[in-house]
């Protein structure tokens, strides 16, 4: 099951990230996980939240540009070779990873990783075939 990730454009100026964090906190938006990637001049903050719509409205109202992307969260067995198993499954299907990051919470024994593949549908198909655990939003965001 695909998750909706929000990417926010951040100018590289002091206080931009904290101002956004404040606005989201004030609106009661809970952030499940986030990742910042940047090139020194500007950055993209990628975040997952149970309240996508509320987060989007809050971000726009606070004066930030944002866009949404589909990602998938996978249970990666917490042992040597765990990640390799996952990657092998999608590689075989000819899908590549655009980026990945760790999910902040660990509801079970496995590690949770968030993936963006260049072909999401093909990737999901391959993952299911390889019997790799795909996290459901309900389970992921419950605490």
């Amino acid at each position: 099951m695909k998750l909706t990730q929000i990417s926010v454009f951040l100018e590289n100026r002091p206080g931009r990230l904290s101002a956004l964090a404040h606005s989201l906190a004030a609106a009661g938006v809970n952030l499940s996980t986030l990742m910042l990637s940047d090139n020194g001049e500007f950055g993209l903050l990628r975040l997952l939240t149970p309240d996508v719509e509320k987060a989007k409205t809050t971000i726009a109202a606070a004066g930030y540009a944002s866009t949404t992307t589909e990602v998938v969260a996978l249970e990666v067995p917490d042992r040597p070779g765990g990640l390799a198993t996952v990657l092998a499954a999608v590689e075989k299907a000819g899908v590549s990873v655009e980026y990945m990051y760790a999910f902040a919470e660990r509801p079970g024994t496995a590690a949770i990783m968030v993936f963006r593949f260049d072909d999401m549908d093909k990737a999901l198909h391959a993952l299911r075939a390889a019997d790799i655990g795909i996290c459901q939003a309900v389970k992921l965001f419950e605490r």
Partner: protein
Amino acid sequence: MIHNLWNDANGTFFPESALDFMPVGNLREVQLQRLKAVTALAYERVPLFRQRMDEKGVKPSDIHTLADVRLLPFSTKSDLRDTYPYGLFAVPMSEVVRLHASSGTTGKPIVVGYTEQDMEVWKQVIKRSLYAAGFTRGDIVSNMYGYGLFTGGLGLHAGLEAIGATVIPISGGNSERQIMVMKDFGVTGICATPSYFIHLIEVAQKMGIDFKRDLKVKRGVFGAEPWTNQMREYIENATGIQAFDIYGLSEIIGPGVGNECQCRQGPHIFEDHFLVEIVDPQTLEPLPDGQEGELVFTTLSKQAMPAIRYRTRDITALETEPCACGRTLRRIRRISRRSDDMFILRGVNVFPSQIETALLKTEASLPHYLIVLTRRSGLDQMEVRVEVTAEMLRDRVGEMDQLQKRFARNIEQITGLHAEVTLSQPGSLPRSEGKAKRLLDQRNLGA
């Protein structure tokens, strides 16, 4: 094809607009008679004009043909400043029924005056402007031009009332209320500066209001600042309205010096009241029709403050092709730049409109931008700050890098100059409620 519809959108005949279709021979005759009269008025009543004409050894009686206007001296905005406030008035104050003043970006404002007859002429040319754009009785119009000393608000207001339209004197500012009023009052027409209206399009989007679905606006006249054809396309595509260019400046009369007809191929100048010339801004030599240069006006019927060969600083050309609407009034090419706005960077002349063209070539929609000029170790640098919109945002830093590079490449292609492009957050650049601020020149502020 549009044939001599005499106004236009629905073919109704409006007597005021008959003058727009006057045979050219008659038009030139009217112009010549009025030119003689205004030259005499200026010479007799305005000391500065008399002094300048005496210096050139020219008398009002030397005007025999329209081309003889070239014998007369030029005037500029600084003449208005130097004679502040009433120095160029040709009538006693007891005959002046209205004053307006322009904000003047530097120093003192300039003051312009109108007699009762001037007010009537002004109203007539605005009526002709509005009819040409297809406004009629029954239209409900938000007049977003500033009311007060600026000629835009009250000028359009009088013309709108005179054609029997319903005027909402909303003036500029309070953008969310503007949208609400457009929606709730069933507004069909707009008068605004193009940059402010583009700002309103953004505001409406934020409020979840779709111009095409939720509003009844059909047309607008836009002016008071240079704007490009790309801005027109953006406005029309985003809102589904027709955008007409209205031209004017306070020194000549205010809005209503010219206006576009249904063909929208540049504003027709109301030549029976305003004599138009195009000159080389450096040599001041007259240029042939079709060639680009500085627009110069002589007012033909103004009483309170006649203008003689007034240099507008607007860069344009006279169109040579007759217009399909049948108007005999000549058109000027849409003004997208002013000689004032031009800046020189490392010896190259650059107009903000060129930057705009480059930005629009990169992205389909018009982003907010600001050109910042700085001097680093003796070398002039151009930075172009572009606001990132949700539409242009991509999830990959690499793609955003590419976007930045495409902006810079297109700017370099059009201007021949390297620009450092900075992506900024939405709303981080200054917004104007009136004229757009596109240039910040910091080259003379310290090191």
